[in-house]
């Protein structure tokens, strides 16, 4: 078995450090928001996880298309890693959002465009794993997976636009605030530090986890190969 690469070991340690620093910044360094109070601190991780969640889904769709063109199983492992890590991060985003929404909107959940799209996207990628589970042949599994991530990647933004036809109450912190949004706020410079550091930290953690998942993927394949060799 090949040992864990040194770069990956370093990245592991860096991930833990940035997660610690980001937690400190979000919980202690950033000032308390005047209206919403302490619960607003969940925002830093909410955006951080949402960002890598979406990033992963875009990566997955691109990896899927690349696989369909090159037929190289390496891209399939890339795609699975991206979807798997992102699905988890996206789930965390939804849970953190709910925790914030309870005091801010007085409800755990509302059928707002972002929330609905997030839920549907999550369901698309859970369906993706169910699809893969039902197929034994690795090539076919990879082809179907690639096609499905592509369909999901196209469908999710359209879903978002469609639900946008209804009005939204989700605040837009970066960019234009919509008139009906509730719970919006403007960031002070200290908040901005915590915010951008959270984005950076989660990007690092995301890369680290992706790398691990890709490595596990190739090890799995090696095991499959060895099993085949033994049985022959």
């Amino acid at each position, binding site marked *: 078995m090949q040992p864990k690469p040194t770069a990956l070991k370093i990245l592991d340690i860096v991930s833990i450090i940035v997660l610690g620093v980001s937690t400190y910044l979000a919980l202690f360094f950033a000032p308390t928001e005047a209206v919403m109070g302490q619960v607003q601190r969940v925002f830093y991780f909410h955006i951080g996880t949402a960002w890598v969640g979406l990033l992963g889904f875009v990566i997955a769709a691109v990896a899927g298309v690349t696989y369909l063109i090159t037929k190289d199983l390496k891209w399939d492992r890339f795609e699975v890693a991206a979807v798997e890590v992102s699905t988890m991060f996206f789930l965390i985003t939804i849970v953190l959002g709910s925790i914030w929404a309870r005091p801010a909107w007085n409800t755990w959940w509302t059928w707002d465009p972002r929330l609905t799209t997030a839920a549907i996207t999550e369901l698309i990628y859970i*369906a993706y794993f*169910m699809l893969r589970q039902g197929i034994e042949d690795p090539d076919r599994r990879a082809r179907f997976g690639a096609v499905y991530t592509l*369909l999901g990647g196209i469908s999710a933004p359209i879903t978002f636009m469609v639900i946008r036809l209804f009005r939204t109450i989700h605040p837009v912190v970066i960019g234009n605030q919509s008139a009906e949004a509730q719970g919006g706020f403007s960031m002070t410079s200290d908040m901005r530090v915590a915010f951008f550091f959270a984005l950076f930290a989660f990007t690092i953690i995301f890369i680290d986890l992706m790398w691990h998942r890709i490595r596990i993927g190739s090890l799995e394949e090696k095991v499959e190969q060895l099993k085949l060799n033994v049985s022959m």
Partner: protein
Amino acid sequence: MTTKTDILPKVKDRPASPSFLKATLAIVQKDLAAEFRSRELLSAMLVFSLLVIIIFNFALELDIKTRQSVTAGVLWTTFAFAGTLGLNRSMAVEKDRGCMDGLLLAPVDRAVIYFGKGISNLAFMLIVEVIVLPVYSLLYNVNLFQPTLLGVILLGSIGYTAVGTLLSTMTVQTRTRDVLLPILLFPIAIPVLLSAVKASGGILTGAEFSEILTPLNILIVYDVIFIAVAYMVFDAVVEE
């Protein structure tokens, strides 16, 4: 020793491979002929649709007041459920009787199979809708025969079968096939269902045409995008 060229008839004797349109129509014709003889798919979809409508009647207490606001939702839920039933069956028949291999061996572009199956799936869905609509009108005393509503139903059904045909080709090749199709299809088809419900609801409550224009545009855009994507990736789905 005979070489390959000896076995094959000479080039001029061999029938030329049929044009795209002709081949597509041949598949549609085959599906329709088979269906009109056995009627197993259409009757199942139809009975199922009527049962769903009856269940909705009890579940939602469809009195005159609620009827107006929920008719669009009830109709589209019924079409979506009946649609998955048809999509599943129409592909499973090809797979189980080994017809899929035959189709794949035909000297035509693979996309022909997609369009052929897609059009016949659409035809089945439209036939069911054509029967369900008057029945619903009759049972609940709502006038559903408005040209714009029929247009919306056509556009919605096109989008739904476009994605459904591609996904059902995938799911019949998996272990959990029948169960898997709705799970894969519904989240992807949500834009179609949402905008179709919104447009149909607008028409039924007598909204201005400009109000239903946005969902109508989204339906058209969705249809075009997904037919194009399915056309491009269909090869990857049937490759052996």
